[in-house]
């Protein structure tokens, strides 16, 4: 090979690059391109779905019996046009809308609801934890998900959820085992969407679930994109955006660059890029910030040999400078959390702040607890860059109080395993609520009752009191009185410092100025049918 020729060839290739920059694909006006938040859905089976990316698809493809108002998050009719609740709060009778069709041509009736909830309750199919959240208070759940007794093996699960009954074509009766008033709210969750009867039996979800929502899945190319097309027969009216291409762009900074180049109509804006976004005028005005119902917190092992002391726990909580953390690490993408409930819940009390930053007071408490020379604790986290920076900031803010935090980071599955085995002293928890009700915050953050292990909670003196208040609150009608009971729970939990709240998250999207309407609802879900194209 002659070097000069080779060199010439290289130069030709180098010069050819710019000419390849052919025409940008002409985008149809009614098509928008967005990207998944994290990576891509692992499954398109609605009863196994649980991640942010999976929920994004489910929210836009499936509708449930009830829905949330995009602005106020209040419960509004969905596939059920109305419902009646029996005076004892146990029997819900739903009247379905007539004439709602599925993409396969079939018409919505009560049998579809029965089929959906039977499948969701079945441990073989309803593998997501959402099944329990939605259905655990429905009669028959215990038979559908039986547990082994002390000496008896696990009984065969019932294949039908007996509390869900077909009354007539358009009427469904759901009987609860206890009168939980949040049931209608739970039915709005992405996983509670109604499937066409029999449609999931094939086990093929390459085209997503067969639902009556505003969109259906046209194709899913693993690792590349998922395409949604509008359901022209949608009962709330055909969506204005006819096609949504959801791209798989795992690197958030790349999403921002793609957005800047005009290739994405919506992108997730990571903290690291915020300073640059805010200083670029064109980007700054397309930034949309939505408070998320969440509580990012430190979970404490209540039976740890240092953390079992409430004085120590209180000292830890007083030694965290939440305001500075939100301003610096999070670039303002959050609000300091001083108690359980996030702003946006009616039970939130903005004047309640048991933990103002006070390292001196923390030091005194530690001395009182028997640690006059300071204390050393290990706090764990999984691989989460923002969380680790939060923990480093906490470490710094707690140092003046004589508290030394050792941050130990492991992979998520190891972290969860250790947390459930109670082998960690403290752990960082990114907790976003499943549905907008204070009950959800209490079940998942405090008692052992629902789903997660809370190390040592059972041995805390106030646990019984909290459980009693909780059982009282969940059957009370939604409103101020119920909220006040939940506030009582919050006060007890914070007096005992059962968790250490740090901040409530704000989700940040870049949203193209050509998208009007409500691209992101009040719960920070992206709902494409609510978009108006300018």
């Amino acid at each position, binding site marked *: *090979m*002659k*070097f000069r020729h*080779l*060199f010439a*060839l*290289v130069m030709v*290739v180098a010069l050819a*690059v*710019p000419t*390849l*920059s*052919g025409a*940008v*694909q002409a985008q149809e006006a009614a098509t928008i391109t967005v990207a998944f938040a994290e*990576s891509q859905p*692992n*499954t398109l089976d609605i009863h196994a779905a*649980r*991640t942010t990316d999976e929920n994004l698809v489910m929210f836009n493809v499936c509708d449930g019996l009830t829905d949330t108002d995009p602005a106020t998050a209040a419960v509004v009719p969905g596939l059920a046009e109305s419902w009646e609740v029996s005076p004892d709060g146990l029997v819900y009778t739903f009247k379905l809308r007539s004439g709602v069709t599925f993409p396969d041509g079939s018409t919505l009736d009560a049998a579809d609801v029965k089929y959906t909830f039977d499948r969701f309750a079945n*441990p*073989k199919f309803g*593998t*997501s*934890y959402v099944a*329990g959240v939605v259905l655990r208070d429905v009669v028959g759940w215990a038979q559908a*998900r039986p*547990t082994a007794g002390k000496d008896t093996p696990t009984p065969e699960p019932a294949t039908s959820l007996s509390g869900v009954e077909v009354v007539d074509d358009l009427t469904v009766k759901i009987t609860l085992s206890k009168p939980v008033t949040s049931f209608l709210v739970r039915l709005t969750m992405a996983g509670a969407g109604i499937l066409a009867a029999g449609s999931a039996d094939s086990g093929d979800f390459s085209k997503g679930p067969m639902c009556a929502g505003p969109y259906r899945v046209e194709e899913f*190319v*693993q*690792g*590349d*994109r998922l395409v949604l097309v509008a359901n022209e027969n949608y009962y709330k009216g055909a969506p204005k955006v006819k096609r949504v291409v959801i*791209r*798989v*762009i*795992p*690197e958030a*900074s*790349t999403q921002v*660059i*793609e957005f*800047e*180049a005009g*290739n994405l109509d919506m992108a997730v804006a990571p903290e690291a890029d915020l300073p640059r976004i805010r200083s670029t005028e064109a980007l700054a005005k397309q930034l949309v910030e939505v408070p998320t119902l969440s509580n990012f917190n430190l979970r404490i092992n209540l039976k740890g040999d240092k953390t079992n002391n409430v004085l120590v726990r209180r000292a830890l909580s007083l030694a965290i400078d939440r305001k500075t953390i939100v301003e610096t690490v999070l670039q303002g993408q959050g609000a300091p959390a001083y108690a359980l409930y996030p702003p946006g819940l009616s039970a939130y009390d903005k004047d309640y702040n048991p933990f103002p930053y006070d390292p001196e007071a923390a030091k005194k408490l530690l001395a009182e607890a028997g640690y006059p020379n300071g204390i050393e604790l290990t706090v764990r986290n999984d691989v989460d860059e923002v969380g680790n920076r939060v923990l480093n900031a906490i470490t710094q803010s707690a140092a003046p109080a004589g508290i030394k935090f050792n941050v130990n980071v*492991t*992979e*998520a*599955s*190891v972290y*969860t*395993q250790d*947390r*459930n085995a109670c082998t960690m002293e403290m752990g960082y928890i990114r907790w976003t609520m499943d549905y907008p009700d204070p009950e959800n915050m209490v079940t*998942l953050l405090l008692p052992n009752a*629902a*789903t*997660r*292990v809370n190390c040592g909670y059972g041995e805390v003196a106030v646990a019984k009191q909290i459980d009693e208040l909780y059982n009282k609150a969940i059957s009370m009608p939604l409103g101020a009185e119920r909220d006040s009971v939940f506030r009582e729970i919050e006060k007890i939990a914070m007096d005992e410092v059962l968790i250490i709240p740090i901040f409530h998250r704000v989700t940040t999207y870049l949203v193209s100025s050509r998208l009007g309407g409500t691209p992101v609802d009040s719960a920070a879900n992206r709902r494409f049918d609510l978009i108006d194209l300018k």
Partner: protein
Amino acid sequence: MTRYILSRLLQLIPTILGIYLLAFFMMRVLPGDPAQFLEGDRGDAQSLAETRRRLRIDEPILVQLWAFLSDAARGDLGRSFITQRPVTEMIGQAFVPTAQVAGLATLIAVMVGLPLGAISALNRNSFWDAASRLLALIGVSIPVFWLGLQLQILFGLQLRWIPRISGYGLDERIIMPALAASLGSTALLTRITRSALLEVLNQDYIRTAWAKGLRPRRITTRHALRNALLPVITVWGGSIASLLSGTVLVEFIFSWPGMGRLLVQSISTRDYPMVQGIVITYALIYAGINLAVDLLYPVIDPRITYS
């Protein structure tokens, strides 16, 4: 020759079996639980047990091993824990994009690295030598992650030469990932070509060629370069194999759905069948390329024969 190839292929069997066993046990030694991943951190103990039963990871480890080996012998690598799709299908799907980027990246590496290394060696200690060595140094030390984002900002945002910045497609979208992926190989090839050529240029037969009065170009191409190619080919083979395994960071930054991303994702979700399948694929790639390189030796240097 045929016998040689056959024996090499036979040697593959124990190699792959060994690599597979290593992957099988190492995945299970790793703390963490695939069922835990599938359930997320909100799952309860009961559904966790159910998931473990469904994935058959509650069975004794040797039973699991036997089940896999007997399936694998029939060409069935099982199904992914996460997506429930056949492992072979998923690997096939990820391999194509990876091979495309690897192909283009290799082409770039050869077209840039070889001439640069040769120029460097032939003009030793000149300005060109210093420049190419500096380039090679930058090439091996620059972080691909940073480079990838800079390429996106430069070509995608500022110059607007590449309108579609990331994602999969055999159009302008392949250019930046290939450039980013080729950087390391280019630098490596430059350096190895330079040093191999320098060594050959000091040999007696080159002096003889000069003494015979041959034209300089003939000396460098026919006498020097050809003899310098052996180490270059060896290194080149290695770099192709590593490109074919997928360049994780490049695939992440450019949203390229290749093998590297699949592997990292599978490891972090403890998707045992996927990881095992990918490891076997890697073993086959490396073994195949090594064999190809070995078979190239006698073509370049007739003194080498296999019999």
